[in-house]
């Protein structure tokens, strides 16, 4: 009789330590193909030209949460170049790239459940993303499930545009933005 009680107590403590209550809130990011933890490449290859002025890319990710409180934060590195020749001020910089983020709710997700935080509520520049920058305040869950194939989610679309300016030094520029979904 005594041994099972000790065993259950041990398991209970183990579960508390390994699964704190907040961690039971599920948070998920997928791409439009429902791939978890996606890598979404944003690629530009252009020549400066008189017209059209801009070259744009857009990509989307899906956010699912079964808790009402969540946050999307982002951290940026670059863009920087190792082979661009010329004055470094003429390199492509983060503030040369405009950033438009929009959010749509699908399925049971509340259309007011994900709120873009300023300055991302309107067009801004990629330079607005620094380290751990707060992008979206999630106030409502998407549904009761975070399954990758659950049709209830918040779709976050990012559009990056770059002016085809003649000032830019020819070369390859690389950078990265990491988005992380967290509990408040």
């Amino acid at each position, binding site marked *: 009789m005594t041994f099972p009680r000790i*065993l259950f107590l041990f398991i209970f403590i183990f579960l508390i330590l390994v699964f704190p209550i907040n961690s039971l809130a599920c948070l998920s990011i997928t791409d439009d193909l429902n791939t978890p933890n996606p890598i*979404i490449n944003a690629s530009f290859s252009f020549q400066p030209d008189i017209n059209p002025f801009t070259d744009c890319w857009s990509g989307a990710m899906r956010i699912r949460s079964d808790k009402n409180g969540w946050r999307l934060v982002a951290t940026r590195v670059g863009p920087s170049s190792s082979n661009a020749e010329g004055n470094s001020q003429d390199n*492509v910089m983060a503030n040369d790239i405009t950033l438009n983020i929009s959010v749509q709710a699908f399925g049971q997700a509340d259309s007011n459940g994900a709120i873009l935080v300023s300055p991302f509520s309107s067009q801004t520049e990629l330079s607005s993303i620094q380290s751990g920058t707060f992008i979206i305040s999630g106030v409502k869950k998407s549904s009761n499930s975070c399954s990758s194939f659950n049709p209830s989610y918040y779709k976050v679309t990012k559009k990056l545009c770059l002016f085809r300016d003649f000032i830019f030094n*020819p070369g390859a520029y690389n*950078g990265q933005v990491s*988005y992380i979904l967290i509990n408040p």
Partner: protein
Amino acid sequence: MRLNKSFIFTLIVLLILFTVPIKTFSQSATVPININVNGTLTISDASNDSSAGKNPTINVNLSITPDLGAAPATGNANFRIRTNRSNWRLTAQRTSEVDTGPTNIVAMDIALLVTTQAGTNANAMAGTLVAPFTATTDLSNISTAAPVDVVSGTAKTSTARDNTNTNNYFQINTQYSILPDFFFQPGTWRTTITYNLVSP
């Protein structure tokens, strides 16, 4: 027996905790950003400085009637250069003339003045005229056999970001003129000059 049931129950609980998909975490997305800026060379018509005015054909028509004290007939072809390359050249080559007169006109009779200017967001020193185009010369200096250098470019044309391409131009003005000499006979004399922007 009771111990075995407890173990089984515990294992089931753990199994559920570890395997239920909704409790797994996939909470990051990574967006690598790769930008390739390629070198470019553009020429546009100074009077139609848009994508529609790229690679222009600019006609210069000089009509003369020999007369005493008459001024030379003059025409212009002005075009704008934009490049983000730091090493470039503007070359010119001419087609053999077609003379329906014969008019007695030769390439040497047509004076050529090449000048440069730059917009406020452009480098006026991006390109320099190459002799003999540094002063008034004549069309005979533009060969029909091979391209000749007219401008030597040693820097990109822009000095600042200009996302409307309004003031980032390096402009080449070419002026052609001919005196209304009584030596010239009625008819039409024609040649075509092709200016090319190249990067070595």
